[in-house]
């Protein structure tokens, strides 16, 4: 299992929510395929150096939301269907939060909204045209 998850313990977002979001993101990006096995609670807790109860809680919530399924003795797996809609929504949420932070920071630094819009369009042009050329 490659190290696909990272968490930031200093963030105000609870670690189990960070982990849930990361699993959904990995599913949406195809880093985790349906049917793929997740690390055990202990392995992931050691890998991320976080409390095993935090990992267990994230897995329980992911199971309730239908993103993963856990069979006793075998482990936790990405569910073959039903997970994609939820995961795509999670990706939109992550992107929205990142954009929100960037815009707030620009305002805090004292830029007027017109200038922020110019910067936003420049960034949009840079990243999206680069993608098209590639």
């Amino acid at each position, binding site marked *: 299992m490659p190290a696909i998850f990272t968490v930031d*313990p*200093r*963030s105000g977002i609870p670690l189990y929510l960070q982990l849930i979001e990361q699993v959904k993101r990995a599913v949406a990006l195809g880093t985790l395929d349906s049917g793929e096995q997740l690390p055990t609670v202990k392995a992931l807790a050691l890998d991320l*150096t976080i409390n095993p109860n935090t990992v267990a809680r994230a897995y329980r919530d992911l199971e309730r939301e239908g993103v993963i399924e856990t069979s006793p003795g075998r482990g936790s797996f990405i569910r073959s269907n039903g997970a994609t809609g939820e995961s795509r929504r999670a990706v939109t949420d992550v992107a929205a939060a990142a954009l929100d932070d960037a815009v707030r920071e620009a*305002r805090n630094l004292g830029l007027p909204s017109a200038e922020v819009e110019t910067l936003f369009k420049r960034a949009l042009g840079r990243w999206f045209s680069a993608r098209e050329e590639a």
Partner: protein
Amino acid sequence: MTLTTISVHDLTKRYGSFEAVSHLTLDVEPGSICGLLGPNGAGKTTAFKCILGLARPTAGSIAIEGAPVTPKTFETTAYVPERNVLHEWMTVGEHVELNRRSNPKHDPKRADELLATFKLDRRKKVKRLSKGQKTALMLILALSIRPRILVLDEPSSGLDPIFQRVVLDLMIDAAAGGATILFSSHQIGQVERAADRVAILKQGRLVLDGTVDELKGSQKIVEAIFEDSVPSLNGLAADARILRVERVGRVYRAYVREGGDEIARRLDALGPKSVSVLDLNLEDIFLNAVADAKSPEDTI
């Protein structure tokens, strides 16, 4: 119903007229990791000693898995004191052997694994070990009995960052195996990662207690950025919900307990360029909890 693993009820410990621990009540649930934070002299070590029956409480009661502490408690409970309790003239191997003879739960294979993890030579005399190696040896002895309950008083003291991480890994490994852990630390980052629950002591009293997520959710920073300088705030900081304020340049920051949105609105009325409500990390929360009362100049 499961029994609370460590239950401390209204514990007070006085040395003469000095009250080291005052009315401490704390429950550590099975399989959880509880981190005890506090400045030096806050009473953490005294609390641990009382919990383990090494100091007699002046008042209050303590139970481990529902029963008073007896010598038998130590077959399943391991304690790593902050102070070095090793014998200087004995070797590492002799300590391990002493541990094997005195505790029926001692697992020689586990001891070997741990000696290898910490790269400790059995033949070395304790007086030749560094401070960090002594800490490591005490941890090895504690973990060799595969304890159900671990009480660690600053388990990382004297260790370099690599071995600090090893200690954290060992705690996580033990917890994943079902052990219950109570530990104190000055490494707030460790507590933030590993603990389910955090208890903060100040001058012998419990000043804050909750899950890491609860504590982080209970406080916010309201940050206002002003055009030129921070104006007179009309006694805003006298608001009891504001724990502490900071002003740096054009930025005013209020650390608030609840009511963050309302305080943000009041600040907004003073015409700043922007107002935001931000999250805190555990270190900020700790500093707020142990800080002295707000100084009068904050209330302008």
